[in-house]
Every structure is written in structure tokens, then in C-alpha cells.
């Protein structure tokens, strides 16, 4: 069973691609350990024969016709880009 003490904010922040200051790391470590400790009460519940629910109202296989329609123009799609050029998003260099 997972324990609140296994929780390492620094490691999780790397997974989340989210830099944290040292102060935030210390603060979240304590606050979220408290939340995890509070949530240990879930371990009391008998869950044999219970299926996980993803949605409150069960729905299956939602289909619709695949019809062409007008959608965003490239100007609209690019209108909020932090960096763009020649009708393209400019991204940070990925390969050397």
C-alpha cells in the first residue's frame, strides 16, 4: 500500500515539467503530505466487487457522422501563438 511518506515533490515536479522554487518544494511537500494523510481513510473501504467509475452517467460508444465542415483558419489558429513566423508556430529547438 502506498504511504504518504513515499511522496517526493521534487521527483513529481520533473514528471509534470514544472519547475518549483525551493520554497514551493518545501511548502508543497508538507501540505500535500497532509492531504495524502487525510486521504488514507480511503484504505478503510471494502472495494471487493466494485468496478471503477469514470463517469457519473454511463455512456458507451458515442459516434457521429464524419462530415467535413469549416474550422479554424491558420490565422485564427496562430492568433495567440507566443512566437510565430511564416504561418508556423516557432518552437524551442529540440534536436542538435
Amino acid at each position, binding site marked *: 500500500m502506498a504511504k504518504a511518506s513515499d*511522496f517526493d515533490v521534487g521527483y513529481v515536479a520533473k514528471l509534470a515539467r514544472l*519547475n518549483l522554487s525551493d520554497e514551493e518544494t518545501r511548502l508543497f511537500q508538507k501540505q500535500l503530505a497532509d492531504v495524502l494523510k487525510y*486521504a488514507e481513510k480511503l484504505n478503510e473501504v471494502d472495494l471487493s466487487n466494485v468496478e471503477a467509475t469514470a463517469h*457519473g452517467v454511463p455512456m458507451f460508444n458515442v459516434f457521429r457522422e464524419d462530415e467535413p465542415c469549416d474550422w479554424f483558419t491558420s490565422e485564427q*489558429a496562430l492568433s495567440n*501563438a507566443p512566437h510565430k513566423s511564416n504561418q508556423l508556430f516557432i518552437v524551442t529547438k529540440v534536436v542538435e
Partner: protein
Amino acid sequence: MSRPDLPALTIADLQSLLRGRKVSPREVLESLRARIEQIEPKLDAYLSIDFDAAFQEAEKVDVTLPLGGVPIAVKDLINVAGQPCTCGSKILGNYRSTYNATVIEKLRAAGAIPFGKTNMDEFAMGSSTENSSVKVTRNPWDLSRVPGGSSGGSAAAVAADTAFGALGTDTGGSIRQPASLSGVVGLKPSYGRVSRFGVTAFASSLDQVGPLAKTVRDAAMITKAMAGRDRHDSTSLADPVPDYTANLGHDLKGVRLGVPKEYRVEGIDPQVSSAVNAAIKQLESLGAEIVHLNLPHTDYGIAVYYFIATAEASANLARFDGVRYGYRASSPKDLLDHYGRTREEGFGEEVKRRIILGTYVLSSGYYDAYYVRAQKVRELIRRDFATAFEKVDAIISPTSPEPAFKIGERTANPLAMYLADIFTNTANLAGICGISVPCGFAKVNGSQLPIGLQILGKPLDEARIFQIGHAYEQSTDWHKAKPNL
């Protein structure tokens, strides 16, 4: 000509003046603008207002439509083409919507004019609107207190007559709780009743758009205009949308109302308890039958909610990567530095805290222990309600365990803030509908602070909770009280 009497009207009354050509849509907007200019500096309920666009819409609006000529305020995570959509976040500080959410298309088709965007907790994460990266909104009943949240700007504006009605979103109580703390009506529709297309996602299996309004009738009118199947949202339900105003005025004879034993928990403000008990007596006197019942898994709601909501949020907020829209950190040295600093600099503290928790409960080795376990307990919470609704038509509780708290009082303790959702978030987990209706005032240090009554209904049974809420409301004067601004 500005008419200072107009902003206090309900949507139903305003619309009948408009339809009867007693006032024009332009006069309505002028009166609203004057009211906002006078009151907004005290409240800070709005993030942006576009009266120029609104006056243009007013010129050609058809006043014979159900909401024809009625200005509506919109929580700032719902896209209105051409207007900002900041989600209360620095990371979307310069964002401008390129398209309309389906709810906006539908409200416009019903004649409403979406004229301004209201303040909120960043990405709807919070119960006080203090997590906005822009400003703190104040409660119209006591300016030193929070309006509730996350739809706090919408609630404050409706309470202060700086909006006739407003849209909010509710993931764990974010419409009902601010409605309760600000003294207005707020509905969370059943999951799937209203399209989420064009609404910035927080927790996709819990989020619903709903109205904040001065009366139950007004809330029913807005819901009627918004609800229904949308081809852009595969979770929206095709069930026909009834006329929610049709049952208003029917009495409560034969209506069975459940009072759950588990909702009598420690920590409820005594003035809230006594107001809700008085409301239950009042409902009984209107003909309803009170049934005491059990919702045995209630106590697990907060823990389940914070695992599921943060897990879904951590996935939904992965899209804020500084590439296609939003803030981007300057001169990143490589891609990881780009992501890490963009998100560090763009997100506020509560959002970061929830991304960390959500990423953790989904991470390898912990997924089954936290996330899957929470989804299973969620199923038990859903069954609790399904069993209860075999015996009753609706369930009664307080909306919030206490009236509005002071600005700054809770921000240091996230867990205490999370417990503010104790009566509301199980409805989101179970997919049922719920409404908060004003049911009295608490006297705290010379202030009159509103108290809300929550009425929970079966999935897709909004018509029933509107009927009950309306019958209660019309037998009391709480909804007529106005803050002294």
C-alpha cells in the same frame, strides 16, 4: 436614457419589459453600464467588459426570444469569440478567444448578450476567488469577505445587481458554494446536460456549466437555453430538454425530500444549521414529506474528489506548454527548460499544488493505490445516491458548512479550504444535479451573511429541483434582500 431601476430586475421581469417594448436593449445596457461604473470599483467582479460589442448586438437582437436583449455575464474560462479568456491565470493573460463555446452560441440564439467576463480562481481551482492571478473579488454583503469560488465574480456580480444573470462552472461546488456565500441562486446541472465545448477543462468527468441568477425562475430560463446535445462534446446527453419553467408554481404535495444523517457533521456553523432546519420545516409546511436516510460513503467524498479532480487537471493543464498559445518563458536554453520555466512562471501556487498532487496519483506505482481506488469509492458514492433516490425525489442539505469567511483567512491551509466543498462535491462525483437557494442570513460581527440551501436531484431531474427551489423561494423573502452597497 439610463434607468437606475432596471439593474435590480430579475431576468423574467426585464424580459417582459423588453418584449413589451417598454424598454429597449440599448437602455438596458446603458443602465447596467451605469450600475457597473458605480459598484464595480468596490467589488472587482469583472476581468473584462466589452460594451461596444454588446451595444452592436443590442441593435439587432430579437426581443421576442426567451432571453431576447438580456445581458449575461460569463465566467472567464468560457470562450466568447473576440473577448479575452484568461481563466484567471497569468499563463493566459494575453489570450483572446477565436471561437465561441457552445453555451455562448446557444445563449445568443436565445437572444442573450454576453457582454463581460467575470473573475475566478485560477483555472477554477479554489473556493474563494482569492486564487485569481489578477485580483480579489469582494463579497457584496461584507467587502472584507470572499464571495466564494471558484465562480466568485459571477456570484458577486449577480448579488450586487451588476449582472442580471451569469454563467459559472461547477467541478466540486464552484457554482453552488459562491451562490450560497453571495446570496444568489446557482445550479450545477447533471453531468452531460450542458455542453462543455469551448469551456477550459479543469476535471473533465466533473465539470459542468450552469447559471447564477437572482431567482430560481431566472436560473431555469438560462438552463433551458443552454442545455442539450452538442456534436462537439461526446459526453453531452441527447435526452430532450424539458421546459424547466413549466413546473414552477406546482405545490410540493407528495414530494419526498431526503435528509441525510451523514450531513449532520461537526464543524457546521450553528446559524447555518438552524437556517437549514427552518427551511426543512418550511418545505414540510408546503406539503413535502421529509425522509431521513443514509449516504454512508459521504465522509470519503473530499479525498476521492481531490484525487480524481487533480489527476484530470494535471492531464488537462499539460496543454499549457508555451507553444501554441499563452505565456512562454524568455530565452529557454532547451525544451525542458522551456516547459519547466513557462509553467513555473505562468501558473499560480494552487494550480501548481494540484498539478503536483494529480501527477503523483497518476504516476507509476501509485496509480492503483490512489487513482483507481478513488474511482472505485466514487462508484460507491454514486450508488449511495442511486439507492437514496429510490426513496426520495430530492435531497436537502446546507450548501456550505459556513457563511463567507474573511479574505486571507484560509489561504495558508489548503486542506481547510478543500473541506469547504464537503456538501457539494459528491454531486459532481455522482453526476447528479444540485441547486443552491438563499435560505437566511447569519449575523457575524454586525454583518448579514447569506446562507444557502442545497437541493440535490436525480440525474437529468433538473425540473424537479427547480420546482422545489421555486416553491421554497416564493414562500420566503430571502431572495428579495439586497446588499447595502
